[in-house]
């Protein structure tokens, strides 16, 4: 193993590892999470215990886990990638049978003390497994059809399982993250071009099929698309969320209405104000300045990850870091697009800010992997 031979002697040991942690990244993540606590406190109407406190506890646990994961040598994680992927596939299958139903979709496995959301875990294990795959795959085979087909299968399997839940949002994120990783790994342009062309064709076919007997989407799904394209067509139904979100966001102005003064979000005009629509509250209460600040924090997280990845000479570490960063990006990009009326309403939380157990823990675990790659990079 080239990696071990070349790196093992450079790996810092013991307590010194702590110094090598990507501290700026940790501070960024803490800042983002802190924003989350503030907003959860606000949307609970000034109540700490409703959402903010449990979220803080989770962050504490997650932070500790992140550092613990970060201190574990990266090669161990690489060796575990296949197992992790296998376990998440099994869990996804298990939710089919034992899953608790929430919001009309089967998503959780209730472990008693914790509600595990396998689809969240899958976002990370998929990236891990793909990174390990490309670390193992000889570079010249990267774009060969057979070796392109294999990662596609690796991506499609969990995607289909997540779609069955049904969780369209996560499924799209899995596809996007997997595809992004294949792009980073160096798969030829032509594949992506043809996929985009095929995708466009498929979308056309879907629209064409509307009203015919071979209709590809359910009626309500079509209606959702209509609503997205023209929210005013259903002002009290699905379009309502988008309209209300835009009103709340827009009424924030430059500096916002002030902390805890966001009337729109306070008055339940917004559904799920503590999860998917929390950015709206932030934008309403802290205005454009608040929104842009959070966006900047997110951008810096991405920048730090890319820098860490580029500095890293190890293929697995780089791909893993970039994959996790991409995942992170997709999270907040989709969420923000959604609340700003740029994307249809799909259930994607705002990373580290939205209230949610699995999402936060899994994200912090993922950044633990980024830390591990950072700490154990060849120097």
């Amino acid at each position, binding site marked *: 193993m080239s990696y071990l031979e070349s790196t093992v002697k450079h790996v810092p040991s013991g307590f010194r590892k702590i110094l090598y942690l990507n501290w700026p990244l940790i501070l960024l993540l803490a800042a983002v999470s802190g924003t989350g606590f503030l907003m959860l406190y606000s949307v609970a109407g000034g109540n700490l215990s409703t959402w903010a406190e449990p979220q803080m506890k989770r962050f504490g646990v997650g932070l500790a886990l992140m550092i613990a994961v970060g201190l574990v040598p990266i090669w161990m994680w690489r060796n575990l990638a296949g197992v992790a992927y296998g376990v998440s596939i099994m869990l996804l299958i298990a939710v089919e049978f034992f899953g608790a139903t929430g919001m009309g979709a089967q998503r959780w496995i209730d472990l008693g003390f914790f509600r595990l959301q396998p689809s969240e875990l899958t976002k990370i294990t998929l990236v891990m497994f793909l990174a390990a795959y490309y670390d193992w795959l000889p570079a010249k085979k990267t774009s060969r059809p057979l070796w392109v087909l294999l990662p596609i299968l690796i991506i499609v399997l969990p995607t289909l399982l997540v779609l069955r839940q049904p969780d369209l949002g996560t499924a799209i994120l899995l596809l996007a993250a997997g595809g992004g990783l294949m792009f980073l790994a160096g798969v030829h342009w032509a594949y992506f071009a043809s996929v985009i062309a095929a995708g466009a064709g498929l979308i056309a076919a879907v629209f064409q099929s509307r009203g015919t007997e071979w209709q590809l989407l359910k009626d309500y799904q079509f209606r959702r698309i209509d609503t997205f394209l023209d929210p005013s067509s259903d002002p009290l139904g699905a379009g309502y969320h988008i309209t209300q979100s835009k009103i709340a*966001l827009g009424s924030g102005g430059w500096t916002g209405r002030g902390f805890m003064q966001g009337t*729109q979000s306070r008055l339940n005009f917004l559904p799920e104000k503590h999860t998917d629509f929390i950015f709206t509250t932030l934008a309403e209460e802290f205005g454009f300045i608040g929104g842009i600040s959070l966006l900047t924090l997110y951008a810096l997280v991405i920048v730090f990850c890319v820098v860490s990845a580029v500095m890293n000479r190890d293929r697995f570490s780089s791909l893993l870091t970039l994959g996790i960063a991409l995942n992170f990006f997709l999270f907040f990009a989709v969420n923000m697009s959604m609340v700003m009326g740029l994307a249809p309403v799909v259930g994607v939380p705002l990373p580290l800010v939205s209230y949610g157990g699995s999402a936060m823990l899994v994200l912090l675990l993922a950044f633990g992997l980024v830390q591990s790659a950072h700490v154990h990079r060849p120097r």
Partner: protein
Amino acid sequence: MRRSRAEKEAIHGKLSRRAILLGGAQLLFMGGLAARMRYLQVDQADQFRLLAEENRINIRLIPPKRGEIFDRNGVQLAQNVPSYRIVMVREDAGDVEDVLDRLATLIDLTPEERADALAEIKRSAPFLPVTIAEDVSWDAVSAVSVNAPALPGVSPEVGSTRVYPRGSDFAHVVGRVGRVSQKDLDALEDPDAVLRIPRFNIGKINVEAREEDLLRGAAGTKQVEVNATGRVMRELSRREGQSGADLQLTVSAKLQNYVQARLEGESAAVVILDCENGDVVANCSAPSYDPNLFIGGISSKDYDPLLQSKYRPLVNKTVQGAYPPGSTFKMMTAMAAIEEGIVGPDETVYCPGHLEIGGRRFHCWKRAGHGWVDLETSLKRSCDVYYYDLALKVGIEKISAMARRFGLGERHDLALSSVNSGLTPTKDWKLQNRGESWVIGDTVNASIGQGFMLASPMQLAVMTARLATGRAIAPRLVKSVNGVEQPILGGGPLGMNENNLRKMRKSMYAVVNDRRGTAYRSRIIADGLRMAGKTGTSQVRSAVVNNNEVPWEQRDHALFVSFAPYDNPRYACAVLVEHGGGGSTAAAPIARDVMLQALYDGEPPLEAYPTADRARIKIQQSRLRDVKPQARIAKGKDQA
């Protein structure tokens, strides 16, 4: 996988390029998000801020308290009483069906009501209270309160209902309220928003309707913050409305009650005016009905009999009715003649029982004739020929003009619905409305209040009050508004020769107090309270047949107008008994009885009645006392 250094460099180079490419794309996208955010929050902020306010603030109306209505002595005629209803809030109830079942064991809830309530609950927002039962008894409220733990989401609520404690006595004065109908809204150019509140009541007839603007008051508003589902989160501001004005009417509840009771069994109308200021102290139309039945909607079981009765209980006969005034009109013909100086009061006319005019024979009611009659005798004995003669000399225009000066043919501005203007015909009127020219026979008929001549009992009472005082008395029904005394309209001198008026009154005195007067049997004995009046019988059909031989609908209307005391007129009164027969037999006794009641402000002593009547009166009074008195509800209310 063993890789050479060069291979590793190549891989890493490609990875870095693509990483930076992808990272750049991500940053570009974030730039797009920032631009979108700027567009929404900066460029369009004003617009969204406006939308946000609209979203958030809701203006709710607070229904005003409707003004209450009192009689001249502060007896309550229309009041607002708390009414209880049982409401249910779905989100608090849990198992709605189960709770409804439990509720049904406590209050009367028919299966239909239960089904209606259930449908309503399912239809409305989960946090909105839905009315399950309205106007429930206090017992039901207590039962619900006591069992509250077993009835989650169910609670009693207090509302306000209009109640008319004097019931049918005042249906034809106070009127009633009812739900706002689409017709009511259409009739208004700019309907008050409060009218659109569900279950809001407005005055439908009589004082309640005519004084609606005063009684309703102005709605208050409260600004409430609502959330997306309409639930009120908190009250932001509150502007109290203006309660409706309390009205004090000129009527006396006690007198009105007596008169209504006295009219029991008749289809009749009585108006009593105060000669001093025109106050309507009694305005009775019989039969009446209970306006309370209409509150919250009347059932057809209750309504159909009212609609179909030939006695027309829903019609306010005092002001809506228009009847030929019959012989009560003779004073007008006489006044026209003597004021014009065409005939003197003491000139006599020979009545052979009929008068031949243009080859047509006009009869006096007394076929045998009255012989030589002067003004007093003609009135006292109600000779028709005397007036035929006067009319021929004076002409219809002068007679009608005189009648109008006494308030006939005039639409008195009263706070009652459908005030009839009656009719004092002229030649032009007939030409325009009938397309025929006036003939002398019309004048002859008009002279004794027949033919085209029409008057309401109210107008006849006004006429009598003007005769009694010589002043242009105008009827007044609203005494004070929120304690502020209302102006007395009219009352100025009529401009008649006082001697002529005195002569007229003296003749009217004779009608009642002369042994040969038509109303002698209905005189008042008490000294200083003597009554003067005039009987009238208005023909419903032209053929002269005995009243007892024709069906009720074809019998003559009985009329009587009077004032008392003769020396110092205090009250003027008009009595109409539909199809009652002769004025002397059907109407005059009623007038005497009610006038005595008014003059004594309560039960008069038997000595005030003629000896022959006392036994009957005694029986009648005992019967009247048996009429269930209405509860007096005046206490606890600041008297206006």
